[in-house]
């Protein structure tokens, strides 16, 4: 595969992971456990969506189309985010009877942040200089997310019997999708992306296992590279929940074409 195609495929994965998890983060606004956490998740959401914007603009410069259109109007089948990040925060919706799951959210956030950190480190070694430079900058911001989510992970693990049980249930639920983070879809290991699935997985396990061990949480098993539902987000296979998310996210854009914000 040509370098240019690898770059485009990679940018879609980066943009879509960050945009979708950023949207899920934003859905906690007003519903998080306390007001400081509303602020934290609002801020983290803003960071992630900001990172997505940079990757979408790079796609725009490569002739893939307008960045806003790519964000808001692209159909689910063209999205390349991992299925893990599109899962709802819990039962209900933001507007209707949200019964969101904080244990799941923290488990997902921790595994995603560590994966993102490993991937960003790979990107700083990319032969595509603009991408390597942006990755170096984003890495410095992501340290705050990781610190926050590690703190929460420990707090839930050490809190009460209930908080620990809910965290462990969250981990079990995350584990059914976690392998989907590491599949590379149309991204070939190359100077643009100098790592394999196994490299990503090894780097991620190297960071996560000690965190689990420190809290006495059993390591579930090696993540399944072929998710049980057979959905590989990196190849455009998604749950109906992504469709619902895109419906909500693109509502204003479709209602008022050409609006600026």
């Amino acid at each position, binding site marked *: 595969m040509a370098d240019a195609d690898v770059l485009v495929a990679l940018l879609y994965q980066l943009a879509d992971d960050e945009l979708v998890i950023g949207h899920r983060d934003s859905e906690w606004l007003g519903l998080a456990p306390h007001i400081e956490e509303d602020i934290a998740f*609002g*801020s983290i959401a*803003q*960071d992630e969506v900001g990172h997505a*914007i*940079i990757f979408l603009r790079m796609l725009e410069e490569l002739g893939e189309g307008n960045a806003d259109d790519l964000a808001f109007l692209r159909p689910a089948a063209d999205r390349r985010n991992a299925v893990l990040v599109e899962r709802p925060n819990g039962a209900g919706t933001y507007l209707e009877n949200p019964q969101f799951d904080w244990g799941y959210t923290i488990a997902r956030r921790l595994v995603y942040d560590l994966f993102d950190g490993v991937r960003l480190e790979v990107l700083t070694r990319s032969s595509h200089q603009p991408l390597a430079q942006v990755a170096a900058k984003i890495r410095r911001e992501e340290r705050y997310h990781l*610190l926050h989510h590690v703190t929460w992970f420990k707090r839930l693990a050490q809190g009460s019997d209930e908080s620990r049980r809910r965290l462990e249930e969250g981990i079990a639920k995350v584990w059914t999708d976690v392998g989907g983070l590491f599949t590379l879809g149309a991204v070939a290991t190359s100077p643009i992306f100098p790592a394999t699935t196994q490299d990503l997985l090894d780097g991620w396990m190297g960071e996560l296992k000690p965190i689990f061990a420190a809290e006495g949480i059993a390591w579930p098993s090696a993540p399944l590279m072929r998710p049980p539902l057979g959905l590989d987000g990196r190849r455009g296979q998604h749950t109906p929940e992504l469709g619902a998310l895109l419906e909500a996210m693109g509502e204003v854009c479709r209602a008022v074409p050409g609006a600026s914000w």
Partner: protein
Amino acid sequence: MVTEAAVWAALTDVKDPEIPPVSVVDMGMVSRVVVDGDQVNIDMTPTFVGCPALEIIRRDVAARVAVEPGVGGVAVRFVFDPPWTSERITPQGRERLKTFGIAPPMPESAGGLINLAEVPPCPFCSSHDTHMENLFGPTACRAIYYCDACRQPFEAMKTV
């Protein structure tokens, strides 16, 4: 013809939209000014990648420099090389942050790690008897602290 020095001087008039006493030069956001005839090209480096004020800053910079004598056109570009770090804030910028009730960023710890045990002194009373309330604040670049000496909440620029 406009000089680079005149452009830099003009840029000190452009304030951070979220921190009015501090200019974009104080913040270390201007990485390069190149004058080519009557055309001025300015490279700026975002404090945070997702900072929603970037387009406002771009507009304000272009508008201010455009009215300098001898300027025909202005192009403002955001670049990530070198990346913005909180070390780029000038000594004057650090002082001005304090006048706005924001503690300047702490120096980076060894290995680029964030050390939560280190707290900034209070921008109001200079006491070191402060503690962190929230790693995240009203903007991406700020965290929230509380001063146990003068009993006031305050913000601090994050170390990035």
